[in-house]
């Protein structure tokens, strides 16, 4: 163990960050593989999602809608809406990484929460590239391996509710949301709004649609100017904006 720790300590900071983040995130693939097969996806379908979509929250969203008996098209739209944050990471990463052509196409597959966080935290382009690639590769290997293990195990065991993995899925989302809630009151109001909308709409709309509807909470926040002080608890005044 101490040899391992010394080996880890000898690595550069971006590599170390990348490995740590990648392993932790990759292991939640176990929860994904389990949830996917429990929702009716085959082992192959679960693995193809992890290999090709390779963005956890979107995959969980699609599987969650399917598990609730919802329309799969609605599930796919929800998954893509969640995946749109990777577009934003890509916009920020594009000049940080500075790759073009085929390299850029290859790198695009690795643009996820974790790799963006590690790459954007580095100082130089070389460090950013190292951090990005380490996180991408580590997460990719772990996420796909654990997806396969979780899917195969669930296929064999059947009912996995005894393992409590149904609580691990919302815990994944909670952990992803947590740092955003610390950013400010705006984020907390948007989260509260999204949660209330989703819960209120659930009895009346097909599964998946309430999640899409929750994005209205973000839309309202987008229309309100960033630094305007507003009364706690009340409906914010709508400004006329062009």
């Amino acid at each position, binding site marked *: 163990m101490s040899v391992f720790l010394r080996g880890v300590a000898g690595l550069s900071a971006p590599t170390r960050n990348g490995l740590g983040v990648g392993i932790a995130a990759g292991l939640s693939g176990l929860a994904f593989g389990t949830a996917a097969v429990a929702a009716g996806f085959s082992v192959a379908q679960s693995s193809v999602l992890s290999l090709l979509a390779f963005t956890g929250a979107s995959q969980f969203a699609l599987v969650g809608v399917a598990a609730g008996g919802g329309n*799969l098209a609605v599930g796919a739209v929800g998954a893509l809406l969640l995946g749109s944050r990777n577009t934003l990471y890509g916009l920020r990463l594009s000049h940080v990484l500075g790759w073009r052509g085929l390299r850029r196409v290859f790198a695009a597959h690795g643009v996820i929460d974790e790799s963006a966080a590690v790459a954007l935290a580095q100082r130089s382009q070389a460090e950013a590239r190292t951090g990005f690639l380490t996180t991408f590769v580590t997460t990719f290997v772990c996420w796909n391996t654990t997806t396969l293990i979780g899917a195969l195990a669930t296929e064999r065991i059947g009912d996995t509710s005894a393992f409590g993995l149904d609580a691990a899925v919302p815990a994944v989302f909670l952990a992803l949301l947590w740092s955003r809630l610390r950013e400010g009151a705006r984020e907390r109001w948007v989260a509260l709004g999204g949660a209330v909308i989703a819960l209120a709409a659930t009895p009346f709309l097909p599964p998946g649609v309430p999640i899409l509807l929750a994005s*209205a909470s*973000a839309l309202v926040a987008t229309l309100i100017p960033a630094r305007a002080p507003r009364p706690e608890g009340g409906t914010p005044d709508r400004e006329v904006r062009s």
Partner: protein
Amino acid sequence: MSLWIAVLVTALGCFALKLAGLAAPQRLLNQPHVQRFAAIVPVALLAALIVLETFAAGQRIELDAPRLAGVSAAALALLLRAPFLLVLVVAAATTASLRLAGLG
């Protein structure tokens, strides 16, 4: 929509969204509304997913005590600044042990 089509649409769409960001002209970033919406929309979606994964079964709102306890334990772990992996283990272990004890 069959499962395979949903899988492939999601997979291709997610990749296209990633590539669009890396390959897009930088002036898109300068659109404040686009930027603000893209930055904040995950917050709303994640919050919605958390409550529905915790409380919803299809169109029904249900209270599964062991699951709720697991998610609450995860929140507590996050408050105590536990690392990501530990948060998931705490959530699953709490729910699993309550079910083993015969609750829910």
